[in-house]
């Protein structure tokens, strides 16, 4: 079960980025998977650089978070490219953002090569917890806590801050917001950068547990879509619930009937599409 929650935490960060950008800008951004992959690669490089420069291993988490946030600087650049297709048909947007996915794969190959990158055993730098026969690395709990904390912060920011209200208003009616003096372009840039940061931080956070490989983003996009369909496109609460459902369902299937791992997830997707097509929490940017 804990394995499922851990998976859900990383899945949530990518799906949340997808949700936020769609909720506000109406862009189906497949490149959110690439941000996750780039975050992982950049995280490995930054940690290696920092440790070589004499940083203590215990700073691992801080270095990774910083690298994820730093890398989010690519957000405004990508948003500038996507600005040309606001309001275009969704299939067109998906094609363009998928092209970005392929381009980012080449960028990764150019800078980091095709071999997987990882960071040895740093995963265990914060120790392990023992419960009976089970041994669980503390880092797993850190990722889960980070996922939960980011979800709470996102919720709080969107609901309780002035900027959050502006974002929600822009999501509901961009023209009216603009008429009331909201700088829509700036809101879009910031929202997209925040969505990018969710992906890059997610990739950076998960890298000690896994290994960075070029295709890791594409795999996650597919799962993130299942999350979005279950939770409802554009809903932050939906991303949280959808990620939990997909993560836990996957873990239970692997433990009981490993053959039906994918089947179980997509049965739920189909059920949601049939019974509640808009998803469990279908409300834009809430």
């Amino acid at each position, binding site marked *: 079960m804990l394995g499922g929650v851990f998976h859900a935490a990383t899945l949530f960060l990518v799906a949340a980025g997808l949700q936020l950008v769609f909720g506000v800008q109406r862009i189906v951004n497949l490149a959110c998977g690439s941000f996750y992959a780039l975050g992982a690669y950049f995280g490995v490089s930054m940690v290696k650089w920092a440790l070589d420069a004499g940083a203590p291993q215990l700073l691992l988490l801080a270095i990774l978070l910083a690298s994820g946030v730093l890398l989010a600087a690519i957000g405004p650049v990508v948003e500038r490219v996507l600005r040309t297709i606001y309001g275009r048909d969704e299939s067109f947007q998906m094609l363009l953002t998928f092209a970005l996915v392929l381009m980012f794969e080449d960028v990764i190959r150019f800078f980091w090569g095709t071999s997987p990158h990882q960071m040895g055993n740093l995963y*265990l730098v914060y120790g392990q917890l023992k419960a009976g026969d089970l041994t669980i*690395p503390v880092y797993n709990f850190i990722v889960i806590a980070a996922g939960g904390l980011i979800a709470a912060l996102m919720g709080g920011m969107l609901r309780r801050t002035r900027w959050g209200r502006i974002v929600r208003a822009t999501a509901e009616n961009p023209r009216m917001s603009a008429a009331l003096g909201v700088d829509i372009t700036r809101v879009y840039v910031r929202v997209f950068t925040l969505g990018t940061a969710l992906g890059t931080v997610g990739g950076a956070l998960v890298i000690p547990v896994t290994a960075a490989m070029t295709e890791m983003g594409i795999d996650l996009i597919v799962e993130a879509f299942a999350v979005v369909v279950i939770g409802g496109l554009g809903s932050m609460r939906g991303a949280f619930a959808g990620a939990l459902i997909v993560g836990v369902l996957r873990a239970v299937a692997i433990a009981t009937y490993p053959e039906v791992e994918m089947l179980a997830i997509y049965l739920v997707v189909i059920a949601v599409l049939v019974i509640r097509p808009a998803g469990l929490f279908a409300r834009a940017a809430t």
Partner: protein
Amino acid sequence: MTTTRRNFLKGLGGAAVAAGARLDAAPAFAQSGPIKVGALVIKAGVGALPGEYGLRGTQWATDRINASGGILGRKIELLIEEESSPKDTVERFRKLALQNKVDVIVGVISTGVGLAIGQVAEELKTLWLAWDGTTQKGVEETMPTPKYAFRSVDNEAEAVMSSILTAKYFRGKFKTVAGLNPDYSYGRDNWAAFLAIMKKYNMGVTPVTDLWPKLGTTDFTSHVAALQQAKPDLIFSSLWAADVSIFLKQAHAAGMTANTKFVFPVAGLVHETLKKAFTPAGMILGYNTMYFEMANPSPLLRQFTRDHYEKYKEWPSYESDHAYFVIAAYKAAVERAAKAIGGKWPSTDQIIQALEGIEVESLSGMRSYRKDHIMEANFYQGLTTYKNKYDFVTIEPVEVMTTKQIQKPSGVGLYDWINSWKV
């Protein structure tokens, strides 16, 4: 000058002679230009890693041959196309064969793509020397008696060798076994072969679970939890990409590597990722047909390993050997066929005839093609050790088996062959 009838006829005669000379010269021109070698290389997804190693082996072989004067004086020119889906790769194969008019096509790693390419190679009468991608299912049906397609070693050979080594090293030391294999025909066939051999060797072991992660999985926490629940004494896994180190890292973090035995028939592809920090010593690890750290390497392997490290800052992997071999075999076959016909450039049929049964030195020792167009080679596996200068594991002792021992003979089913063993 006015043109007289005599001058005109002279000119006409000269032109005819020149034209005749050009007609005669046409084949000579074709034989004196570069040899066009098409290469189908995976560049995206999980397969990009072996694809890259294959390309490195091809380029090293090509540079080496060109530096020594080419094949019968002709340099090799590489034309690289991408291996992706079967449909798209077939189109690129056609382009190489029909538009680029290549002399030979090398490459392809995926079995699914290979099955499609095998058929089109026969249809276009284009020589194709595969690097890899030869799981059992479908190969006999799709390519029963290939003429233009030359296949790699059977993919199950490494699982057969690992299973034999499991019986040798771990007999009586485990009672329960779990499988963790990629969810496609290769993973399924390897697990089935392992269980069949355990039965054949009367190992008396019970499978407690079999898990089927998707190829290239990056999160094994749920699989590790399921394995902790099943408590197997030994885990057999034919994972081969970055997923091997991810699984081992997560299994180690969960305390599983201390008392569980592991068998990884082909994880040597990503040997540098198997860090000592989380990879247990004493597990069976396979390097397919090339082990970079041989105690007494051949001069060829020593040179390749050195060049590879200098250029890429990585220690080489076996896919380079498959790729090197097909180029070396092609060169040897052309030279052998040419010798038989007085030094002229041989036809494709003559090259094919020369390839059948050919034996040449590869990076892993002598390798050959059987008469049924399947490769024969040595396989290298052993028990992991920390006794080396690297931060990753190597193997000691190094066990070597030939495909004569671990690859089913022509015309026999894999399981019929295993059942026929006398153990």
